[in-house]
């Protein structure tokens, strides 16, 4: 049994690879997202992305932010060996949308904005408000967990090296994505 802090540090690269793979899927394989949640109509990159290059002597960190920020700099960082360490995402269904960020090293969710009311209308509304909020949170958590399961399945398969990595490399190298 691995010690928790050892496992956290030793396998943190999995989270960064997951987010990098997710960016690739957002651009190349949106169909994957309906396998993670049948209601998903789109998953988009939000207004912030952080990339880290740990291949260099000191960790190089690049932050891209802003609603209209281009991702060319991010792609360039990938070419130099960086991975996505944090990414803002927008998850859409036909009716609703969720905004949130995922951090690679921890898979923690932050800046989560769910649909629905932001506060109960009165004491008697507290329970329905909390349960609705929990359902909205759960939906996005399950979605991310399902995506992560798909990633881990791909990552552990022999096709990771023979198919997935070459496809991702090709995408990284492509000038216009």
């Amino acid at each position, binding site marked *: 049994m*691995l010690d*928790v802090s050892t*496992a*956290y540090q*030793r*396998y*943190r*690269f*999995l*989270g960064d*690879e*997951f987010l*990098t793979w997710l960016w690739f899927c957002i651009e190349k394989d949106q169909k994957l997202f309906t396998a993670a949640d049948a209601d998903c109509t789109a998953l988009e990159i939000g207004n912030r992305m952080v990339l880290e290059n740990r291949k260099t002597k000191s960790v190089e960190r690049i932050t891209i932010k802003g609603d209209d920020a281009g991702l060319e700099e991010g792609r360039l960082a*990938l*070419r*130099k*060996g960086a*991975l996505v360490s944090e990414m803002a995402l927008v998850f859409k269904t036909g009716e609703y949308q969720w905004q949130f960020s995922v*951090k*690679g*090293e*921890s*898979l*923690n*969710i*932050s*800046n*989560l*904005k*769910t649909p629905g009311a932001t506060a109960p209308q009165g004491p008697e509304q*507290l*329970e329905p408000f*909390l*349960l609705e909020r*929990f359902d909205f*949170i759960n939906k996005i*958590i399950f979605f991310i*967990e399902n995506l*992560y*399961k798909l990633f*881990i*399945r791909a*990552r*552990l398969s022999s096709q*990771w090296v023979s198919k997935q*990595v070459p496809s*991702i*490399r090709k995408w*990284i*190298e492509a000038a216009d994505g």
Partner: protein
Amino acid sequence: MAITRYRVEGKLAGAATEAVRRGLQKNAIAEIDNEAEETATGWTSFESPFFPSFEGSSFLFGPLYVFSMRVDRKSVSAKLIRKHLGIAVADRLAKTKKQFLSKDEKTALKENVLKDLLVRMPSTPSVYDLAWDYEHASVFFFSTLRAANEKLEGLFKRSFNLGLIRIFPFTAADSLAGLSDSERDVLIGLSSTQFSS
């Protein structure tokens, strides 16, 4: 809103809701205002975090146990201690008509000054909510602060005698993806992928 996810190891003995209530009551936050304590950590009510009460089904919302962890802290600055220690030393010297105090006397005086300041200082509370889906052995903790997470893990274990496994890349792969033994072996042996050429 920020969330750290946990898996809960094991089940409570007996009726779960009663066991949760006992754990919450036993480890409810103790007030440290007017006390010579620097910090306190404990459970409080989600609805009324400054008046903890776990009566009835106040922490039960549908299938969820919802309550909060409160951490109260007092922070006495070194400058404030120095000021009041200076006053206390001068006062002691005047009363005892001594030229100086011994090291032990100064240490004791400093402890008393700190205690006195702590009693007079109100604490600053931090409240962190959590939702425990007992049936699915899942806890959502609404903070990603490392110190708060570490306090939660200790308090949860003390209160319910159940371990919390934090979900991060390795534990998510190991516990959520339904891996076979051979897949787990592959997981343990993984090293990072080189995406760049």
